[in-house]
Structures are given as structure tokens and as C-alpha cells.
């Protein structure tokens, strides 16, 4: 086991790439739950984002349009969840789970309808990397952040923006008030349902961007179930990050680092004993448990998280 395998530039660059889709899902989770709606359909939003992003990239050959379509698809799925959770006041876990199943079935069905037995085309428009010229030449730092994808940087920007929005602006305060005490918020004139609708739609957009990152920046294709549970890991990152954007990003980085280590440490040995591959694949989860148990402490959700709101007199 060498330092290169533990914290080499390659490992850190991989950590950023692996953390990005999780962080985007976690950001979506933060916004929705801060407004009081649990959205476990994030996984489904990612999946439709990944799929419809590829379809749009194939048809329009425009990355910008592809990302727009991907995010719109995520918002549509999240919109259905919003109607069920806010308007119909149904159980949010059941609705979210149903939408996840719908997304999995729908994308694999349409994938087969559109691309048959051959799969998505090889020459899809891709989201480009950002090369930061002065940084790219610097040893180590250049290797870590010199050639990252546009969406990786976009994620960092979004984390900061949403952190500022939630905790430093009036609309952000209102959104949090709706999630903590909707009755009190309504008595001062805040539209509880409207705020929650916007928050859930935004969560769908963000998760779908994470899905589009996987299909248009990483894989350059779509395969069934390619999001691999990242929506759920994003929810875990949200809790681990105490429902704050920056906390969620840190949690995603821990998870990404664990996954990156599980690859870089393959073939490493401690003393004379080779570390088994199967054991390494548990690293992200072990690191997460350690981090949650050791550093996070008590993590409290918004007081009205997951509780449907009923307007007085109905």
C-alpha cells in the first residue's frame, strides 16, 4: 500500500467524478426536505434524466438541449410526486417508490423500443471537460482539477448557490419555514403548497442533472439501471450532511473517496496479505458508517419533513 494509492492525484480526481452525481441527488434531497417533502423518487429522476438526455443528444446533437430535456424529464417525474405528496396528501414514501419503479420500467421499455438490440449510438454529443490552462500545468493540483467535466464544476457552483439561497436569502428562509412549521408560515402569508411544489420540481431537476452527468459525461451511452442506486446514496449523503448543501457535498466526497479507494487499492497488500477485492468494495459504506458514527453526531430533519400539509378549514 503506497501513498499514491491512498491520496494520489488520480484517486482524488476519481473522488470528484464519483461524488458529482451523488452530490446532485443530495442537493435535490436537501431542497425538497427543507420544504417538508420527502422525495425518494430521486433515483427515478436520475434515471429518466440519464435516458432522456441521451435521447435528446441523439436527436438534436446539442449538449445544451440534451441537458435541458434531461432536467425537464426529471422535473416531470418530480412533478407527479409533488401532486401526489402535496395535493393528494398521499404517503410520500409509497409515491416515491412507485415512481422509482415506473422510471426503471419506462426507461428500459423505451430504451428497447428506440434502440432495439443494438443500444444507444456510439457518437453521442458529450458534455465537454473544462481545461483550466494555468492550473493544468501545476503538478498534483493540475492532475486533480485541471481536466474535470463541466458538470463537476457546475455542481460545486450549485452547492454554493443553494447554500446561500437557503440560509442567506428571504425566499430561502421562507422555504425552510414551510418545512419547519407550515402553519406558522401560512399565517404570515407564505404559500405553503406553492413553495413545496417549486422545491420538489427543483429536486427533480437537480437529480436529473446528476443522471445526465452519468450518461452524457461519463458513459456516453444509456444502459438499464445505470444510476445504480445513487439517488438513494444521495439521500444518505443529505442526512449525513445534516440537510445542508455543503454538508451533503462533503458526505458525497467521503462516499466518492471510498469508491475511488476501492479501485486504487486493488492489488495492494497489507504486510504480505493481499486485500480481497470483495472487501474493498465495501469501503464506501464502511467509511460512511464511520463518518456518520464518529463525526456527524445528532442529525435532525426539518420538523415537518414528510408530513402533508392541510390548509385550515378543509
Amino acid at each position: 500500500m503506497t501513498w499514491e494509492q491512498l491520496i494520489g492525484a488520480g484517486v482524488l480526481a476519481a473522488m470528484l467524478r464519483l461524488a458529482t452525481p451523488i452530490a446532485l441527488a443530495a442537493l435535490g434531497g436537501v431542497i425538497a426536505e427543507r420544504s417538508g417533502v420527502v422525495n425518494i423518487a430521486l433515483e427515478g429522476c436520475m434515471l429518466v434524466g440519464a435516458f432522456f438526455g441521451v435521447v435528446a443528444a441523439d436527436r438534436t446533437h446539442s449538449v445544451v438541449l440534451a441537458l435541458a430535456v434531461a432536467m425537464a424529464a426529471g422535473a416531470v417525474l418530480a412533478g407527479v410526486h409533488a401532486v401526489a405528496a402535496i395535493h393528494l396528501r398521499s404517503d410520500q414514501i409509497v409515491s416515491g417508490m412507485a415512481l422509482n419503479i415506473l422510471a426503471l420500467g419506462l426507461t428500459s421499455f423505451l430504451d428497447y423500443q428506440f434502440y432495439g438490440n443494438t443500444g444507444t449510438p456510439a457518437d453521442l454529443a458529450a458534455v465537454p471537460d473544462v481545461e483550466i490552462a494555468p492550473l493544468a500545468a501545476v503538478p498534483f493540483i493540475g492532475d486533480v482539477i485541471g481536466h474535470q467535466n463541466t458538470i463537476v464544476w457546475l455542481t460545486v457552483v450549485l452547492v454554493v448557490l443553494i447554500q446561500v439561497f437557503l440560509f442567506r436569502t428571504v425566499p430561502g428562509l421562507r422555504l425552510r419555514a414551510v418545512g419547519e412549521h407550515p402553519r406558522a408560515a401560512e399565517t404570515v402569508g407564505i404559500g405553503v403548497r406553492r413553495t413545496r411544489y417549486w422545491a420538489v420540481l427543483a429536486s427533480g431537476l437537480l437529480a436529473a442533472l446528476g443522471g445526465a452527468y452519468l450518461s452524457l459525461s461519463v458513459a456516453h451511452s444509456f444502459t438499464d439501471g445505470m444510476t445504480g442506486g445513487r439517488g438513494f446514496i444521495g439521500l444518505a449523503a443529505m442526512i449525513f450532511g445534516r440537510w445542508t448543501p455543503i454538508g451533503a457535498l462533503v458526505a458525497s466526497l467521503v462516499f466518492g473517496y471510498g469508491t475511488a479507494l476501492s479501485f486504487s487499492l486493488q492489488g495492494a497488500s497489507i504486510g504480505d496479505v493481499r486485500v480481497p477485492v470483495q472487501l474493498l468494495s465495501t469501503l464506501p459504506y464502511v467509511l460512511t458508517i464511520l463518518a456518520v458514527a464518529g463525526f456527524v453526531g445528532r442529525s435532525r430533519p426539518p420538523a415537518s419533513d414528510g408530513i402533508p400539509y392541510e390548509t385550515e378549514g378543509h
Partner: protein
Amino acid sequence: MKRVFAFLVLAATVAAACGGTNTAGTTGSPSASAAPSASAAPTPKPMQVGLVTDVGGLNDKSFNQAANTGRLNAEKDFGLKTSVIESKKQEDYVPNLTTFAQQNYDLVIAVGFLMQNAAWKVAKQFPNVKFAIIDGAPANDAGNTENLPNVANLFFKEQEAGYLVGVIAATMAKNKVGKATHNTVCSMGGIPIPPVDRYMAGYQDAIKTISPTTTILIGYSNDFVDQQKGKEVGLNHISKNCDILFQVAGGSGLGYIAAAKEKGVYAIGVDVDQIDVAPGTVITSAIKRVDKAVYDTSKAIKDGTFKAGDNSFNATNDGVGYGKLDAVVPADAKAAADKALADIKSGTIKPKTDLTVKP
């Protein structure tokens, strides 16, 4: 209002089910068995063959896709009625196999080593239904294989296909052909299971034999679906100077190929001909004719020649081989691969089944 939501859940379930069964066969007439008229000769009831895929979807450009191709060919050529159900997770194996068995299908094919135990469970329950397992034999709850009289075990000599592409990789690495300048080749498996390791064992055997100085790397993505994991293993290998990457990881392996494409090195596909996945990057593919296994077993059911127990698909019966070659592959590499193929058929070369280089 609650009723609207109940409808939503129902719609979701139906759509999910459609994702699994949209490709149900249409060749056989379902009403053929119902009340044949006395005057005409009774129309024979079409044989029914059901395919249960592993996770990863029908167009994983790999294993499931090949099985489905075999199913479609068999349906066309033998007038069978066939259906396919996609497994979305490992917990789906038993219910999916049971669905076909309950409908008295003549043959139910389980695609993949990971379904060994599920197939054992269901085959025990339905002794009158014939089953086939691609890459596996029925395995009881303790994990021990146990041959059953109604189950065909369809095994491939993956090491032979791995050896053939290994010959091509070794020749190119040794002679520093094109972008293969670092004399380092590597491979990535999905999960360390026997069929995956046999591919890579044959590959390593060929490289050690033909070009002993070549460095060999090996890794696992620990996944058969996740492309990002496969890509990260690929980027890791390329950073260690690897310039020919052989993937044995289904959908996850497409990420491994994507890494090779992004960094401008070579890749080798697996199971089906993957030269079209990334033209110019994929130089050839190690082919395992899962389609042939499905096709032949369906034919055997129709002809009444179904053979329970081990059935081997190998170079001799064209069950394994190598795929189309990219223009960069030199003639001597092709000649070497063809010679190796002849030697494997004649028994002069017996590729290893155990990994020489382990992770």
C-alpha cells in the same frame, strides 16, 4: 383523491411490467391449441420457450442481448412461441423463472451464473418443465452444484475465447503496434466469478506464453451494470500505462471501453461482437455464443434431444471465438490467433482456467 393516486401506483406497476414483457413472441398462434376442428389435421400446439435475463437489460450490448438474439432466431426458425422477462434485481430471479414454469413452458432458460440457486429452487418445484442455465449448474442452498434430470447446464470454455484475444493483444504489445506502446495490457472483470475469471485466465495465459515481458494488470468493477465504476477502473489502468483493455463486465465494462476511447487507447469487447460500440477503440471481441447456446437448446427441445447435465460450448463446436478485427490489428496477429484457434481445436493448446496474475 386517494383513488387517483391508487391509479397512479397501478399505472406505475403496469408500466414496469411492460418493461419486462414487451417483447413477447408473436410467431406462435396462442389459440392454436384450442379445439382443433375435426376435419382438419389438428394444429400442433407451438412449443414455448421462456428466457429470464440477468440484470442489465436486453440491450446491454453483451450477455442478455446475445441470449435474446438466440431466442429471436429460434422463434423464427423453429416456429416456437417465445417470451422474455428481464430481471431488474437478483430477487427477481425466482419469481421470473416461476412465472414461465407455472404456465407450463417447455423450456425455461436462466441467463447467468448468478441464477444457479434460483434455477435449482424452481426446477425442483416443477420437475416436468425443462430448464437450462447459461454458465451454470443448479446449485442448492448450501451453494453446492447438484445435477437435476430436467436441467441442462450450458457451459462455455471462456478461457479459449480469452486466449484468442490474448494472442492478438500480446502480439500487438510485443511489436508496439499503433497506440500500444507501453508493453502493458490489462483486463477488468465484473465480479470475481468462475466464467469471468476463466476469460481473463485464458487472456493472461496467452500473454505470458507469447510475450513474457509484457506487464499484465487486472481489476474488478464489482458490478455488472454500473458504467461509472467500470470507467474509473479503466482510467486507473490507463494511468498505469495500460494501452490494451479487455473488459469482462457486461454493462459495467462499457464504461471500461469508454475510458479507453476517451484516452485514445485500445479495448477488447466481450461476449458479443462489440466492435461497433466504439469504432477505432475496440480492436476485437472475445466471443461467447450465448445466442448459439439458446438456439441449440431450443432446437433440442423441439427435436426431443434435450440433454440434462453438462453441455459444453467451445472452440471445437464454434461456441466461442474472436470477433471482427479493427484495421489496426496487423496480419501477423490475426495469423497467430487463427493458428491458436486451430491448436485449441486439435488439443495442442489447453488454455489455463486459473488466473496467473491476481488483483
